C-alpha cells in the first residue's frame, strides 16, 4: 500500500456529511483494491511513483484567483482556488431554470439528487476517483430543470497556485429536454496534487455541451475525470484539451444508458518538455441504437509522453450501435513517447464499430502541395502538424471559445517547435 494512500484513508475518517455512506463504500473499495502497481492495466504506461510516497500537503488557505476572460462569451464562474471554493454560490445571478449550490448548502431535495449520482455515474474502479469520493467535501451541484435552456456557460475552474492536496467534485443534472453548457477548466503549475471529478446525468432528450480544459503544467499533478450518463435521445458534445505536467491524467466515461443517445467527443493534447498526459476514455454502449464519435489528436514534442487508451465496449444487447474512435498522434522529437491503445470489446453482432490510430503520418501529397507554393519544408510541416489540431478546434460549437483557444494552442505549439 502506498504511504500517501494510507494517509489519505486516515484523513478521510474526519470527513462526515450526508454523503458518508458513499464515502465509506469508497474507502472500503480503496482498501480492497490497494495501490495500482505497474501491472494494473489502466496505469501501465503512467507510473505513479511520484504519488506513491508523497506526503499529503494540507492547505486550507483561501486565496483569491480568477479564471481567464473569454471574449464575447457570457460565463457564470465558479472557482476553486487550491481546492477551496471561493465563489459564493448563493449569491450568483442565475438565469431561470438552473440552480447551483455547494454540497454544504444543499437542501434535502438537493442532497437526495446529489446522493443519487455521487459515485454512481463514475465507474468504481479508479483509485483516484475513489479517493475523491472519500475526500471531496468541496463539491458543487448544478441542477438544470426539465425543459430549461441555459445560455451562459457555467464554468467550474480549478486553479492551483500553492502547494496542496485538494479534491473537488462536480455533480450536474440536466432534466428532460434541458440544454446547457458546462466547462471544467483547470490551470496551475506549482507542486500540488489535485483530483477533480465530475459526474453528469443527461436526461431524456437533453443536450449537454461540455468542455474540459486541463491546462496544468510543470509540477502540478492532476488526476481527474468527467463521466456522463446519457438517457434516451440525450446528446453530448464534448471537447477536451490537455496539456501535460509531471502527472496529468484524465478519465472520460460515456455511458449510453438510454437508447438513441448520441455522443461526440473531440480531444486535443499538446505536450512539451518532460510532460505527461494520459487520456483514458471508455464508451459503454449498454443499450441498442446509440451513436458515438470520438476523435483524439495529439502532438508530442521534446521529451514528453502521451498515453491514450480509448475503449469502446458494446454490450450484448446493444444492437445497431454506431461507434467510431480515431486517435492520431504526431511525435516531434526523438525523446518523446506515445503509447496508444484503441480497444474494441464487442458482444453484439449488428453493430458498426471502427477504430483507428496513427502515429506521425504527414500526408506526402499535402506536403508537396505546400512546397509547390514556395513554402519551406519546415514551415509546411508546422502548418500541417498544427492543422490537424486546428481541425478539431474548428469543430467547437461556440466560436468565442474556439477563438480564445486557438491562439493559446498556437503559442504553445510554437514554443514546442523552438525547443
Amino acid at each position, binding site marked *: 500500500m502506498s504511504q500517501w494512500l494510507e494517509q489519505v484513508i486516515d484523513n478521510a475518517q474526519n470527513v462526515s456529511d450526508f454523503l458518508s455512506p458513499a464515502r465509506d463504500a469508497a474507502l472500503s473499495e480503496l482498501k480492497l483494491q490497494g495501490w495500482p502497481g505497474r501491472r494494473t492495466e489502466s496505469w501501465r504506461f503512467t507510473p505513479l511513483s511520484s504519488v506513491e510516497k508523497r506526503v499529503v500537503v494540507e492547505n486550507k488557505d483561501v486565496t483569491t484567483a480568477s479564471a481567464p476572460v473569454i471574449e464575447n462569451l457570457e460565463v457564470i464562474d465558479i472557482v476553486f482556488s487550491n481546492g477551496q471554493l471561493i465563489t459564493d454560490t448563493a449569491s450568483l445571478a442565475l438565469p431561470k431554470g438552473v440552480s447551483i449550490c455547494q454540497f454544504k448548502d444543499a437542501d434535502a431535495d438537493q442532497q437526495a439528487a446529489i446522493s443519487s449520482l455521487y459515485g454512481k455515474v463514475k465507474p468504481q474502479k479508479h483509485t483516484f476517483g475513489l479517493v475523491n469520493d472519500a475526500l471531496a467535501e468541496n463539491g458543487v451541484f448544478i441542477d438544470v430543470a426539465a425543459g430549461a435552456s441555459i445560455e451562459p456557460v457555467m464554468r467550474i475552474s480549478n486553479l492551483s497556485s500553492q502547494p496542496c492536496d485538494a479534491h473537488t467534485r462536480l455533480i450536474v443534472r440536466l432534466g428532460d429536454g434541458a440544454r446547457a453548457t458546462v466547462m471544467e477548466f483547470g490551470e496551475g503549475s506549482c507542486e500540488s496534487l489535485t483530483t477533480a471529478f465530475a459526474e453528469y446525468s443527461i436526461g431524456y432528450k437533453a443536450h449537454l455541451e461540455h468542455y474540459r480544459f486541463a491546462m496544468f503544467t510543470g509540477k502540478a499533478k492532476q488526476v481527474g475525470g468527467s463521466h456522463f450518463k446519457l438517457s434516451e435521445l440525450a446528446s453530448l458534445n464534448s471537447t477536451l484539451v490537455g496539456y501535460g505536467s509531471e502527472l496529468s491524467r484524465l478519465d472520460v466515461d460515456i455511458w449510453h444508458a438510454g437508447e438513441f443517445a448520441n455522443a461526440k467527443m473531440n480531444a486535443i493534447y499538446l505536450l512539451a518538455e518532460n510532460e505527461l498526459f494520459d487520456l483514458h476514455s471508455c464508451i459503454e454502449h449498454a443499450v441498442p441504437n446509440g451513436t458515438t464519435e470520438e476523435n483524439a489528436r495529439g502532438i508530442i514534442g521534446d521529451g514528453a509522453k502521451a498515453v491514450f487508451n480509448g475503449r469502446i465496449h458494446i454490450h450484448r444487447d446493444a444492437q445497431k450501435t454506431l461507434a467510431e474512435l480515431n486517435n492520431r498522434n504526431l511525435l516531434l522529437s*526523438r525523446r518523446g513517447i506515445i503509447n496508444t491503445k*484503441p480497444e474494441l470489446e464487442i458482444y453484439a453482432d449488428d453493430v458498426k464499430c471502427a477504430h483507428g490510430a496513427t502515429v506521425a503520418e504527414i500526408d506526402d501529397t499535402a506536403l508537396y502541395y505546400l512546397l509547390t507554393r514556395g513554402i519551406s519544408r519546415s514551415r509546411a510541416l508546422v502548418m500541417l502538424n498544427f492543422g490537424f489540431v486546428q481541425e478539431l478546434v474548428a469543430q467547437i460549437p461556440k466560436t468565442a471559445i474556439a477563438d480564445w483557444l486557438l491562439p493559446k494552442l498556437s503559442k504553445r505549439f510554437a514554443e514546442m517547435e523552438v525547443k
Partner: protein
Amino acid sequence: MSEQIDQALARKYDAGFYSEIESETFESGLDESVIRRISEMKGEPEWMLEWRLKAYHAWLKMEEPEWAHVTYPKVDFQAISYYSAPKSMQDKPKSLDEVDPELLRTYEKLGIPLHEQEMLAGVAVDAVFDSVSVVTTYREKLEEAGVIFCPISEAVHKHPELVKKYIGSVVPRTDNFYAALNSAVFTDGSFVYIPKGVRCPMELSTYFRINEQNTGQFERTLIVAEEGSYVSYLEGCTAPQRDENQLHAAVVELVALDDAQIKYSTVQNWYPGDEEGKGGIYNFVTKRGICHTNAKISWTQVETGSAVTWKYPSCVLKGDNSVGEFYSVALTRGRQQADTGTKMIHLGKNTRSTIISKGISAGKSNNAYRGLVQMGPRADGARNFTECDSLLIGDQCGAHTFPYIESRNPTAIVEHEATTSKVSDEQLFLCQQRGLDTEKAVSMIVNGFCKEVFKELPMEFAVEAGKLLEISLEGSVG
C-alpha cells in the same frame, strides 16, 4: 437467420479419433527428477540438462499470465504427464519400414501419408507424435542441398554447436511462464538449418499430433536461416476428441540472418472442445523470430482449433530494412476462446511490418486480437500498417481488439485500423437468390473475408486451409 448460420457453422472434428498404440507414458507430475528423466530418455548432453533445470527453477518463481481476454480453470501442472512416446519408438527405427504401421496409419487418416512416394511432391514432413518425432521424410534430398531438417532431439546430438548457439536466443528461457515451462520440459520438435545462400528446395512441414490422454505436448522448433537463404515451413496440428482439457505449450524460434527469408505457416486444428465447451486443447504458444539486416519473416496462421488460444507470433526487426509480416485468420465457435495477435518490435532503420488479422466469431465464442507495434528510438523511417477486421456471426459471441502501439521515433509511421461487421441478411439473401444454400453462402462470405490471408499461404497449404474452413463451416442445413 443467425440460427441458420450457426447451424451452417456446426463442425465435425474429423481428426478426433484416438490411435491404439502402446506408449510409455510418465506418471503425471512435475519436479526436477521428471526433467532429469526426460533428458535421460533423450540421452542429452549435460549442458542441455542444465539449461532445462535453469528454466525449471525460473518457472517455479513465475506467475501464470492473466491479462488475456480468456477464462478457464487453472491448469493443474501436477496432473499432466510430461512425456509420452510409442513403445515402438524406443528402438529408434532406422527406416519407415521399421515404424509401427499403426503410427503410419494415424498419419494417413489425417491425410498425411509418410511414404515419400505417396506424398505431395515438394513437401518434406517431420511427424511428431506426442513427445517424439516419428519420422522425417526426404532427408537425403535435403542434405544434398546442405539443408538440415531433423527432430530437435537429434540435432542436440548431431549439431550441438548450432543448437547451443541459437536455442533460447530469440525466446529466452524466462521470457514468459509458458516459455519457461517449455524450456524445462520440451520433448521434441523440428530443427531446420538452411546454409548461406541456399533456397530450400522444398517446403518443410511438421505435423504435430497429441494422442495420449493427460499428456501435455511441449514441442520446440528452431529454424536458422543463414545469410541470403530462403525457407518456407508449414506446421499442422490435431488431437483426439476428449472431455478433458490438454495443454500444448510450444516454443518456436526463428533466426533470419542478413538477407534471409523465412515463411512460417500454421494451420492449427487442435481439438476445440464440444459445443458446451467440454474438453479441447489449451494452446499456449510462444513464437518469435528475429530479423537481421534486410531479412524477412512472414507468419501466416489459420487458427480454427483449440479450446483456448494464447499465441502471439512476433518479429524482432533488429536489422535495418528488415521486414515482418503477420497474416492471421482465427475462427472461433462453440465456447472457444482465442486471444491471439502479434508483436512487431522495430529496432532497425527503415524496418517495415504489415499485420492483417481476420477474426471470425460464432456461437458463444470470444475472439480477441491483441497486438503490439513498437517503434524504437533508432527505427528511423520505420513503418507499420495494421488492419484488424472482425466478423461476428450471431449475437452470443464476442469480438475484441486490443492493439498496443508505442512509438519513440518521430520519423516512424504507424497506422492501425479495425472494423467489425456481420454476415448481413442482404449478403445472404443475394447469395440465396442466386441459388446458393445458406451453408455455401456463409462459407463463401467468410472465405471472401479471409482472402487477403489465404493468398499468403503456400499452395499446398492453401488447399488444406480452404478445406479446413469448409469442414468448419460444414453442417446440416436442410
